[in-house]
């Protein structure tokens, strides 16, 4: 028993933290005059209650997996990439444009191709902060924040100037069928993107655990002096990890375009890039941890819809609970103290 506890210590703490967050949340729900049981059963039902709801949970999880991974990858080389949002916009934009202009290609070429194009667009957007950090020491937190604003503005400019659909909506035309990711279940919008996400998790996991390049990037993050001592070019590694990070953030945009929206539309993101920070740290910067955290967030988000619709409880309480989950998971000592009592 104790052994099992020791082995899964962190997991148990995280779980307790989540429970605790819900407990505090229930106090708030009660205080605002709602039934706690009704609220949480609506939440649970909304997130997992039936196949459709479950698919929506997964759908909401996917972009968070990518942006969470992106932040985690940055952290591996010691860089804090707050620029996921901008990188994702570039990825989404490039994917949509490429898909529209390359519509003559068959699906089996087009899908991987535009996916990669989306990733590369994200990479390009993360290159500059990485490069400036390596060359001039410009702090990546500052530069990535700025690149977010620039990225969102630039996609909007290019869209309206050159690629807009003929309608009052700031969006491209629909991408061709051949570039769309097939749905797993009809009407669910849960597509092959989930497999792409899991595939990327596996790749990143192997990359950092098994490959030399992953080892080198991680060494730079853990101890830059030691990395240099070992003959690792830390500047190169930082730029590279930023670019990989940007690539994955770009995939977030690409899969939304290819799987959900089927076009690029301005303002499509409710801040996936920023939520990615929370997802990454909640997942302890580990690829599978990111999956867990993203799923938690996706479930809260989706369940919140039902909670709002049918239990009439404001969505914002869901946001409060999300915040509490993050705070409590971040503080295992608090949980330890509570558990001991």
């Amino acid at each position: 028993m104790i052994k099992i506890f020791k082995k899964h210590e962190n997991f148990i703490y995280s779980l307790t933290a989540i429970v605790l967050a819900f407990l505090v949340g229930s106090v708030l729900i009660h205080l605002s005059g709602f039934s706690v049981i009704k609220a949480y059963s609506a939440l649970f039902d909304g997130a997992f209650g039936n196949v459709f709801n479950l698919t929506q949970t997964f759908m909401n999880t996917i972009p968070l997996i990518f942006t969470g991974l992106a932040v985690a990858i940055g952290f591996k080389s010691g860089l804090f990439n707050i620029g996921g949002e901008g990188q994702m916009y570039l990825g989404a934009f490039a994917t949509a444009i490429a898909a529209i202009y390359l519509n003559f290609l068959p699906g089996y070429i087009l899908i991987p191709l535009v996916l990669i194009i989306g990733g590369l667009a994200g990479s390009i957007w993360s290159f500059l902060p990485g490069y400036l950090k390596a060359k001039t020491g410009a702090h990546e937190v500052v530069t990535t924040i700025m690149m977010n604003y620039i990225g969102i503005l630039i996609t909007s400019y290019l869209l309206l100037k050159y690629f807009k659909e003929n309608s009052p909506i700031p969006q491209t035309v629909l991408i061709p069928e051949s570039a769309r990711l097939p749905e797993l279940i009809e009407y669910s919008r849960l597509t092959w993107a989930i497999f792409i996400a899991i595939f990327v998790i596996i790749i990143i996991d192997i990359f950092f655990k098994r490959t030399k390049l992953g080892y080198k990037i991680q060494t730079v993050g853990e101890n830059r002096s030691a990395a240099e001592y070992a003959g690792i070019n830390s500047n190169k590694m930082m730029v590279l990890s930023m670019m990989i990070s940007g690539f994955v953030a770009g995939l977030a945009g690409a899969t939304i375009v290819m799987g959900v929206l089927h076009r690029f539309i301005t303002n499509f993101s409710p801040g996936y890039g920023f939520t990615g920070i929370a997802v990454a740290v909640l997942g302890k910067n580990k690829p599978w941890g990111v999956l867990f955290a993203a799923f938690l967030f996706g479930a809260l988000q989706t369940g919140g819809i039902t909670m709002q619709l049918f239990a009439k409880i404001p969505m914002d309480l869901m946001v409060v609970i999300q915040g509490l989950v993050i705070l409590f998971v971040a503080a295992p000592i608090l949980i330890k103290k509570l558990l001991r009592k």
Partner: protein
Amino acid sequence: MHEILDVIFNINTFSAAIRISVPLVFAAIGGVFSERAGIINLGLEGMLLAGAFAGVLGSYLTGNPYIGVLFAIICGAFIGFIFALFTIKFEANHVVAGVGLNILLLGITTWLMQILWGSRGTSVNVTGLNEITIPVLSSIPVLGKLFGSHNILVYLMFIVVIISWIILFKTPFGLRLRVIGEHQEAADTLGIKIRKIQYTSLIFSGILCGLGGAYLSLGHLNWFSMNMSAGRGYMALAANIFGGWNPLGAFGASYLFAYTDALQMRMQALNLNVPNEIIQMIPYILTILVLAGAMIRSRPPAGLGKHYKTNR
């Protein structure tokens, strides 16, 4: 061309930049005090938002905006304390705690707004802060235009910049704080009461953010609006870093952001032959250029982000 020069050197642009910079400056200096205490502060955004909310709440309940400011201060202090509790006592990862705090406060303020005012979007209008005109100063040509007439928080901001600098570099508290930010164990061996100073510093950080938020909701406007901080906390974090973890630097960086933003607003209306989006990018591009080019290589406090475990 001369139109552009006109706005660049226009006194109004400089004066608008003062107004725009206020919440940034408060929050950025809040960032300085937090990070000098070794605590990375991503929670500035949420603290600003909470301050804005508390300010409106205070004014709503009492009809007196100055009591609103007091509410914002108390609220900021409380949140600063909670943040300190999590990051210091419970050894939470600073980045996570900051992000968590932001999400939590966004949720709480929106939720409370619905309970209090029945709307998710905006609160009712409350009494805001009046402009105070300083008799002699306001009649001097340029200075009068820049500094002559503002609400109290703007003047307070200038005082805070100077006082913060003095606190940080001239007082025992500041010296101890700098020691802590660099090397907590060393501070401990010097008999410095680390925790007391860290908590004080973070509470101060929260208070400053509260003031910045109050400026947004009571000084600049007179209502609260969901998520009205709109990313200013992140910009403030950037200004704190850009300004080299120094109150004067943070002020300079905030003012630069604000000035370029004011400039951008004016240039949009000039009907230049430049795409509007490009004009809107000016503040961000300029920041990157200055940061990359100016070779301002200030190091972060050496102990930033670390937890110090005593064996007591």
